[in-house]
């Protein structure tokens, strides 16, 4: 590829990430992701006609939970609780940014 080549990407709808894509992009095994979904720890996944679909926010959640489990030996439920709190914090920070505070 030449340096000045322009890459034309396609835009994925937020819910269009597949289980394999999220797993590969976040360096987790697909089985890890399925276990967390089945245990209700990964609410960003939705099942459509038996196939899992993920929002863009899933990438960050999967990375956060993976790191918490690895760095602190956190049980998945605790990692999910922390991820919930961090997401809540993201929302509040964005809100604060919008309000100009």
């Amino acid at each position, binding site marked *: 590829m030449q340096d000045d080549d322009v*890459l034309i*990407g*396609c835009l*994925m709808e937020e819910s*269009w*990430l597949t289980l394999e894509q999220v797993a590969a992009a976040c*360096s987790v095994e697909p089985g890890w992701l399925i276990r967390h979904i089945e245990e209700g720890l990964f609410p960003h996944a939705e099942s459509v006609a038996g196939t899992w679909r993920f929002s*863009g926010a899933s990438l960050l959640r999967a990375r956060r939970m993976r790191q918490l489990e*690895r760095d602190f030996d956190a049980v998945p439920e605790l990692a999910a609780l922390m991820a919930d709190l*961090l997401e809540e914090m993201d929302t509040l920070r964005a809100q604060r940014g919008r309000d100009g505070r």
Partner: protein
Amino acid sequence: MQFKDYYQILGVARDATADDIKKAFRKLARKYHPDISKEPDAELRMQEVNEANAVLSDPEKRAAYDQLGRGYQPGQDFRPPPDWDAGFEFSGQAYPPDEAAGFSDFFSELFGHMGGARAGTRYAHAGFRAHGEDHHAKVLLDLEDAFSGATRQISLRMPKVDAQGRVRLETRTLNVKIPRGVRTGQVIRLAGQGAPGTGGAPAGDLLLEVQFKPHPHFRAEGRDLHRTLPVAPWEAALGAVVSVDLPHGSVKVRIPEGAQSGKQLRVRGHGIPGQPPGDLLLDIRVVLPPANTPKARELYETMARDLAFDPRAQERT
């Protein structure tokens, strides 16, 4: 290349037990956690701490590092002797390629070849044909890009396996056409730009997660575009048609008679382009002219006298 003292980074003695190392790492991982840390260089320090932990928490890597690093001081110029790692058997890496991408050249030089073949293709085996992994990166775009569909140059640091099987960090610069109508949180997929496949299988894709840089006037929420619209008191009171600048052009907006600060005007179809396009939402803010000339003071005094207006009247009822 400078020698890195991983024991000093974690703040443990050279004879620290595995438990001491784990405790020290967790303490620092909490201190420099990128989501909560207030330290100015938290991200860099966390990378350093992760790197030190990757070596010292792994008995094989720690033994090799101890043997090699004997007599070196932190920051001292360092070159590993050839075949220094002969006699050690390394069994892979705890940190995935996306995180290991932040590790130093010192780490790459010593341990980069460990699990190197795995860095790009996780399911690779001899004689096995495997699709390369998808890579993921976050890109910061200007809001204007969503309107114009511009081509942007994006630099990414990515781990790459060299001919000797070592993992090197490589900066890739890509020219990417930003699709018109892109929104925060969406993912642009660049086919074939991820990790190479094995056995002639196709490469993975590069998934770019879009976020907008903060804009001085606008903020995007989904496809809707918000901005504050300052208006003069007479524009708000009497109604007016004003021109509002957009990231890509401008639009004329009618302010209804009797508009107040805090009211919101919705201009359909003038948000981020798409099918359907988003809306433009204008938060009205009435701005008072300063009473800094005799004429201005006279006008305010006339209003005070003739209007009999009490803005706090509602509070009293």
